[in-house]
């Protein structure tokens, strides 16, 4: 076997280090952790930056994993691909729950709506595909945040935008809720984005088990909840829909 290429070995070590941390690291921190001279790390870091595998925060100068690497790996799925694969099951969920269905993916710190199925009551509705929704105030957003911890960093420590009296604006409270989302495998937004509207979401996982998207039903709180709690039946439909789509994407059944 030919001798391993040292700079690639070192680049891998840098990437592993960055992927294991939720907060950004400075050049000095990276060099210190790996026991390498700062100059050496600097050179490799510049190249990793230029190919998009690493990103640098313009204000602090600190580094983190780049979007291009994430896209190479398991936690990105083209929205059009997701919609096509999920089409029949999104329709199924809309029919079963008798509510509108939405599919969302991560995009620039928001939830990008990649698919929208009307509530099957033939009432006038408008297609919302392409809309960007806030992560902290939607069920889909909470699901995606819960399964991508490094994103929570980006929300910062300051107050989150308020949409209704119910919106969670304290990042610490959000973190507690996200812990619960991870535990129970689904999320709810109880009138946190729009007055009177509740949504329930579950994660869509790919072959590697990463959450590549979220599927949700939305509707009036009085239909989706009993005594201010999401109806179990509806939660199970959403989870079943998410599981079926995940299975079609190659995820191990769970």
């Amino acid at each position, binding site marked *: 076997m030919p001798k391993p290429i040292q700079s690639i070995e070192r680049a891998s070590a840098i990437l592993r280090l960055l992927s294991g941390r939720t907060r950004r690291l400075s050049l000095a921190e990276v060099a210190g952790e790996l026991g390498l001279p700062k100059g050496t790390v600097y050179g490799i870091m510049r190249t990793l930056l230029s190919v998009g595998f690493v990103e640098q925060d313009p204000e602090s100068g600190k580094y983190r994993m780049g979007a291009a690497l994430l896209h190479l790996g398991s936690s990105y799925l*083209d*929205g*059009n*691909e997701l*919609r*096509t*694969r999920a*089409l*029949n099951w999104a*329709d*199924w969920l*809309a*029919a*079963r729950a008798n509510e509108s269905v939405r599919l969302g993916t991560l995009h620039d710190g928001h939830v990008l709506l990649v698919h*929208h*199925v*009307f509530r*099957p*009551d*033939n009432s006038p*509705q*408008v*297609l919302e*595909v*392409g809309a960007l929704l806030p992560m902290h105030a939607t069920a889909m957003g909470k699901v995606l945040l819960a399964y991508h911890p490094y994103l929570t960093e980006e929300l910062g420590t300051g107050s989150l935008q308020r949409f209704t009296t119910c919106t969670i604006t304290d990042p610490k409270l959000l973190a507690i809720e996200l812990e619960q989302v991870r535990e129970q495998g689904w999320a709810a937004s109880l009138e946190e984005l729009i007055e009177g509207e509740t949504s329930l979401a579950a994660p869509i996982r790919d072959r590697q088990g990463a959450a590549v998207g979220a599927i949700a039903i939305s509707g009036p709180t009085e239909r989706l909840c009993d005594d201010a709690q999401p109806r179990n039946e509806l939660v199970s439909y959403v989870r079943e829909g998410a599981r079926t789509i995940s299975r079609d994407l190659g995820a191990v059944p769970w």
Partner: protein
Amino acid sequence: MNGEYIAAIDQGTSSSRCLVFDLQGRIVSLSQKEHEQIFPRPGWVEHDPREILRNVIEVVHGALDTGGITLRDLVAVGIANQRETTVVWDPHTGEPVYNAIVWQDTRTDSLCRKLGAEHGQDRFRDRCGLPLATYFSGPKVSWLLDSAPGLRHRAEQGDLLFGTMDSWLVWNLTGRHVTDVTNASRTMLMNLETLDWDDVLLDAFGVPRAMLPEIQPSSKIYGEAGDSLGGVPIAAALGDQQAALFGQTCFSAGEAKCTYGTGSFLLLNTGSRPVLSGHGLLTTVGSKIGDEPATYALEGSIAVTGALVQWFRDKVGLIGSAPEVETLARTVDDNGGIYFVPAFSGLFAPHWRGDARGVIAGLTGYVTKGHLARAVLEATAWQTREVVDAMNADSGIAMSSLKADGGMTANNLLMQFLADVLGVPVVRPNVAETVSLGAAYAAGLAVGFWPDVESLRANWHKAAEWVPKMDQAERDRGYRKWKKAVQRSLDWVDDDD
């Protein structure tokens, strides 16, 4: 009746699928398997009928497994199939004598031109509703019987059987040699009025009656499937586009749908009488439910729509998957001035020009792969515009919205562009799999799972709607360029091709 489910087999051009539905017409499970597209030479397209049969049985079992149900839970099975594709087999051995010749195949071009030499392409249209074109089964059977010595003789003795894919499947599953009226109406061998094989047509194509299946209604128990499918009743067969018309609950005259798959097919229910088109559309049978009178339809058939995306993926390699075409197309704002006329099998409706072949017009150094992807998608929309215009002219009524279904409705860019170039809203139903749903409905009616067609209307719900946003001037300009590109695709094939 102990079962709660109906299964539908959608034996399509690219793949075979089985979908299981419940009483509310909701999908319970689905399984799909692609089969090989065989291109022995340019313009020739074949499938292996044995591979298709194996796949069909496999996907039925697959759908049952996924849904956690068994054959005993099924009340009936309905079949929807790719139309016109022609199989000839030996009933004693069960073996086909040749691959299935697919509807897109153009090898019968010179035969069609020869038959139309004296009286023109519309020579048989008042009998069967169809122009002379490579599309239909009659010329394909004729070619096949001439392709090797002794075949025609064996056919005359009844030692060779002909069928479209519904017949091939039903014969293998139940032993009965039948076809339904909608499939028969695509052969160019059946009379539209009598709904029986027509001796004048059989004579013209040299097809012996002895090899033909018995023509049956679309919704009726044909027989019970043997061991492979545990005795389940096979209770419907419909050409896939007619199944989609049924699945979209277009039960009355004036109701229409367009299915977007490998090809795209606009069908309008014209009621209990056949209507001849003056604008390049086909007259075909819509369905026949048991003993009720048949309903007829006008059809605008577009040969290459989704197939163009698949070609772009498999042969050109600029996209890794079909949905990626939308991603690539969205990297640019418009088509960069190019128009792609995918006349891979000549032009079907409304032009019916077997001499046309594919063309990309308007190329300059500015054009990128994003523009190509855009033009690939726009081709579907412009071709739809042409058949909608023809349909409006034939029916005398302007369509107020388009009911769309099929796999390509997942492509939002395409659906929006479609609404833009048609100038009317495009609507998708909940259950994009209307082909399978229609076959399930027809089978369910035959066994009493559903009481009547009116009860099925309640299952139709709007799942999405795209509203036109393009201004008239831009639409007109684009259409003008499209029509120029179509002109450039004509007069390509020569006698020595």
